[in-house]
């Protein structure tokens, strides 16, 4: 625990942390502002129709939109961030110091991930706040009713989904963590993560159905399904396959998290620390 707290001390002053948080928050807010601008300028109704605008800009539906968008941005930025931050334990040789001071390797590996997970969860929370502000701005630009964000009846459901998104985000960033720990190197970790993105987001559209059916069990997909969000009404997802049941998806996501952390811990346990 004390190590996880010390970990937050060592990460939060880092410019990569601040930059990642600013980017995540900025993109989420921007997305809603742009939706507002899009709705307004598309008086012909071409870019965004009314139903989509309602989903995006009117509470309580907008909560789902906020979570969906915050989840995507925080996942992408968080995955790269975690690979960067954890890879530098190898690049800087600071893991070596912890091991030589007698810390257990797996203990260090897990608590370092714990600190990073906390930072990523803070990122998700800030992303959601930025989304709320973004919705308010977007709605006012579009001249659209934004509804009541403090609608108490919608909040419990929102928190459940937020918690599911949090688990999903943490599981996803463990992909970046495991990549950096196996590669023992920052750049290799980041590289692996980028390849993973291309594979999991871009490639499925180009691949045959059977591959897509398999790919929906990969963590990015299961973590998104696990939140149990409603989609924008008009999006007939051309590229995605049918979503998994949220609870099944959540279970698979947790399994990914456990498995990837085990991979990271075993790999550090066996490593020769010569850096």
């Amino acid at each position, binding site marked *: 625990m*004390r*190590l996880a*707290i*010390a*970990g937050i*001390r*060592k990460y939060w*002053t*880092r*410019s990569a942390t601040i930059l990642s948080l600013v980017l995540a928050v900025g993109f989420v807010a921007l997305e809603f502002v742009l939706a507002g601008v899009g709705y307004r300028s598309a008086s012909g109704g071409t870019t965004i129709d009314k139903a989509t605008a309602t989903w995006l800009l009117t509470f309580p539906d907008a909560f789902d939109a906020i979570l969906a968008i915050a989840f995507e941005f925080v996942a992408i930025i968080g995955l790269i961030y975690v690979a960067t931050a954890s890879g530098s334990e190898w690049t*800087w*040789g*600071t893991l*070596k*110091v*912890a*091991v*030589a*001071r*007698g*810390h*257990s*390797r797996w203990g*260090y590996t897990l608590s370092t991930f714990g600190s990073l997970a906390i930072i990523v969860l803070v990122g998700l929370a800030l992303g959601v706040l930025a989304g709320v502000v973004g919705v308010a701005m977007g709605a006012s630009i579009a001249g659209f009713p934004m509804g009541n964000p403090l609608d108490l009846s919608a909040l419990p459901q929102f928190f459940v989904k937020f918690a599911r998104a949090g688990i999903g985000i943490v599981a996803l960033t463990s992909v970046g963590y495991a990549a950096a720990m196996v590669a023992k190197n920052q750049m290799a970790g980041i590289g692996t993560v980028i390849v993973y993105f291309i594979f999991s987001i871009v490639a499925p559209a180009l691949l045959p159905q059977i591959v897509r059916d398999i790919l929906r069990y990969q963590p990015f997909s299961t973590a998104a399904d696990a939140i149990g969000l409603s989609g924008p009404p008009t999006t007939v997802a051309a590229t995605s396959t049918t979503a998994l049941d949220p609870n099944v998806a959540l279970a698979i996501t947790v399994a990914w998290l456990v498995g990837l952390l085990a991979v990271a811990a075993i790999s550090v346990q066996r490593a*020769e*620390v*010569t*850096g």
Partner: protein
Amino acid sequence: MTASTTLALSTTNLRKSYGRQVALAGLDLEVPSGVVYGFLGPNGAGKTTTMRLLTGLIRPDSGSISVLGQSFDESKHTILYDVGALIESPSLYPHLSARDNLIVFGATGRRVGRARVEELLDLVGLRDRAGDRVSHYSMGMRQRLGIAVALLNDPKLLLLDEPANGLDPSGIVGLRDTLKALAGSGKTVFISSHILPEVQQLADIVGIVAAGRLVTQGPLSELLTSQALVRVKVQPEETAQALAVLSKLAGDGHVEISDTEAAWLTLRIVADRAAAVNRALAEVSIYASGLEAGSDLESLFLELTAPPEPPPTPTRPGAIPGWNSGVVS
């Protein structure tokens, strides 16, 4: 070493290769408690590899290690709570201050309080810059901080890999005083170094390693005695006669005529016998025009770590003779 001496550190037949590169080829070390042990060897001899093995960073291929009286392997990592180490260059968080680095590292291994952090900032002379980012530090300042990290948990055994790297004269004096004080208070200091005069001033015991094996180990004073040299200068035409006389005194093969300085002869005998050298020459009416007695770690080091004579190869123009002599390949 006698069996009754307690050992702070020992290794038996320690072997380690990186792929096909042999780094240690059966190392046997014995480091008694409460001494400063100078661990010397040329580049690539295996010093850093030894330190890594002693701190569980890498695993030996075979052989055993005992640390602070307990047999050590990676599973017994808590033994390292009483060990402090600086291995190769200091590893620090560049975006954190010296103070925050110490606090963050202090959260690993055995817990370290804030008072200790402040004490160490004073000890290594970083108090005034304790709040600055380490990325803005000079090399010597990082080295000082690396030493402070090694001292965090007030270790019983301190492993320092070339700790004087980049230190200014006052830093070196400070380091020497600190290490002597630690050894004085019963702690053990195991230090690798290339700065032989420094080791000569500091170490009680030295071990010299070459090509992954220990070539000698023992109290510094004894090693230096065994290595003593007397140098004497005579008239050029008397060189042959002097050689004959002195060979009787020192024994065959213990006297050499210098190839670089005309009419200087080197005798491998203890320094106390310089007077006897002078007397023996005077008896045959040779009067020395120069006489030097002494011993130094450097000549011992060079002699013990010299690689086997290579087949003669033409020297590249501009190559420095002996430049590659210590490198194990």
